């Protein structure tokens, strides 16, 4: 996803000189080509994310479309007040890009786990929050984000769902229905969609037809397909590589309650409001913290057995 993002941004930067990429001294090997091709559109701000975000706001207020780039929480939580006051309050066209959503950097420890970012970023007024599930989807969404002014957050994942390319099915702000079914709906965000796909295949062998909705845009949240899923399947399981507090599950619950469409069956799958204290690869940590395909299957069976 990271390479897909940089490749797409390079194509855009080649024709739009207002696009700027600022890194907080990360992206070894990944940003080299961009920096060489567009020296006037690239800045390494050093290990100084507060200043990087302030700079981005200043540049954006002078007409640039600015992308800040670092890993995990460094473009978001480290400089959260700069995002809130300098970027969001000023409607500045700044996209904070975080490489390493969830457990992407699973061996690096909790400092490098982005597991509260979705909840925190979506609480900022005016912020668009995006988490793609595939590299090709990242390219499509990057291009659409450039065309959308204002503050944005792009959460990139090391994993990927590996679904076939479907150029026509990805629209910023819209939910993607990636699997049809009428017994239960699995609602996912980001690359953990791959676990939901595995779970749906297993559930099908048990006679349970799961619908899958991929929410690549958490904010603004596309109401209609979620409300329809709640009404048509009567059971929803939300799945996120993120704390269960305030993220996808929280956003969907708020929406469905507001719409008077809360389903009879409801489960949230995600990190159970804790800090992981062990490390491992992304697959290992998903299993260890109860958000792999087996955990999703169990949650689906539980909502249907209500």
């Amino acid at each position: 996803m990271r390479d897909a993002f940089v490749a797409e941004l390079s194509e855009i930067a080649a024709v739009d000189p207002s696009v700027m990429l600022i890194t907080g001294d990360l992206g070894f090997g990944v940003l080299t080509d961009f920096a060489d091709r567009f020296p006037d559109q690239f800045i390494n701000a050093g290990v100084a994310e507060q200043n990087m975000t302030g700079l981005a706001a200043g540049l954006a207020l002078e007409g640039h479309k600015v992308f800040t780039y670092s890993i995990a929480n460094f473009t978001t939580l480290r400089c959260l007040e700069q995002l809130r006051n300098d970027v969001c309050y000023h409607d500045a066209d700044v996209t904070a890009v975080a490489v390493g959503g969830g457990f992407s950097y699973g061996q690096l420890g909790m400092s490098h786990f982005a597991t509260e970012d979705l909840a925190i970023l979506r609480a900022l007024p005016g912020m668009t929050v995006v988490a793609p599930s595939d590299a090709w989807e990242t390219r499509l969404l990057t291009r659409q984000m450039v065309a959308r002014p204002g503050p944005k957050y792009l959460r990139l994942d090391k994993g990927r769902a590996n679904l076939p390319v479907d150029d026509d099915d990805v629209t910023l702000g819209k939910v993607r229905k990636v699997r049809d079914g009428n017994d239960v709906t699995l609602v996912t965000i980001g690359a953990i969609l791959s676990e939901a796909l595995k779970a749906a295949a297993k559930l099908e062998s048990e006679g349970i037809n799961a619908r899958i909705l991929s929410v690549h845009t958490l904010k603004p949240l596309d109401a209609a397909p979620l409300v329809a899923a709640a009404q048509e399947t009567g059971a929803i399981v939300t799945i996120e590589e993120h704390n269960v507090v305030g993220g996808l599950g929280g956003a969907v619950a708020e929406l469905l309650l507001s719409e008077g469409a809360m389903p009879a069956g409801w489960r949230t799958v995600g990190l159970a409001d804790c800090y992981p204290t062990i490390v491992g690869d992304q697959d290992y940590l998903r299993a260890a913290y109860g958000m792999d395909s087996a955990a999703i299957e169990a949650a689906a069976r539980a909502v249907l057995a209500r």
Partner: protein
Amino acid sequence: MTQPSVFRANAIDTTAMALAIRRHAVDMTHLGKSSHVGSVLSLADILAVLYGDIMRLNPAEPRWIDRDRFILSKGHAGAGVYAALAERGFLPREQLKTHYQNGSKLSGHVSHKGVPGVEFSTGSLGHGLGVGAGMALAAKRAGRANRVFVVLSDGECDEGSNWEAIMFAAHHKLDNLIVAVDYNKIQSLDSVANTLALEPFADKWRAFGWHVAEVDGHDHTALSTALAVESGERGRPSVVICHTTKGKGVSFMENAVLWHYRTPQGEEYAAACTELGRATGEGENA
């Protein structure tokens, strides 16, 4: 490029403008029962010289592309910026009375929303300089000659984010970025020296690669000389350390920690008005 000198307001009497800002500040903090009058009085001369002499602005076109940008990073002295903007005709003087009142756009910490001439909103310390560096970089890349002026407080220099921006601006040779530090030696609860000592302050800036000038922050000639820096002139950013007196112009507010937060009411308000040369209740248009 637009010829900017027509908008330079060097016909303005900055001494009179500073006095007007001080009168507005006392009235606004009196009417709003609000804090930070000492911070505004400290800053009044710096604001008068910038808004009345140094900066190229166009009140008829606040977003004029070649304007000099101004960011008050010490946003708690926002009443001073509103007063300066009113004196320059960006907003009606009458509107200053709404400061701090229910439904007002003139918030205690300076905000740009619905207020022509305010470039950037602040209030949390340590934000303005990084943004100013971004604006200065954008001007350089666009080939514009405008400058970016940022005013910091001394206490604000406790914030590490400033030093990130200070390093960045020097590294990128942003000589169109000019900082004025309102160095009144007093912060929220105590003196700067007793809180987190800044000295040797000028040496710190020099070590970070900045051009440094130190002036009496109430001497308009000295301020005007030090702040008159053009883009492309020095090859590095400039800081003017302005030695000021907190509460300047009202004797009992001067050098008093108390007047960071205290609001002028009753006899104190009357005494402040008298010291600023007019009768109590004369209004901010005196």
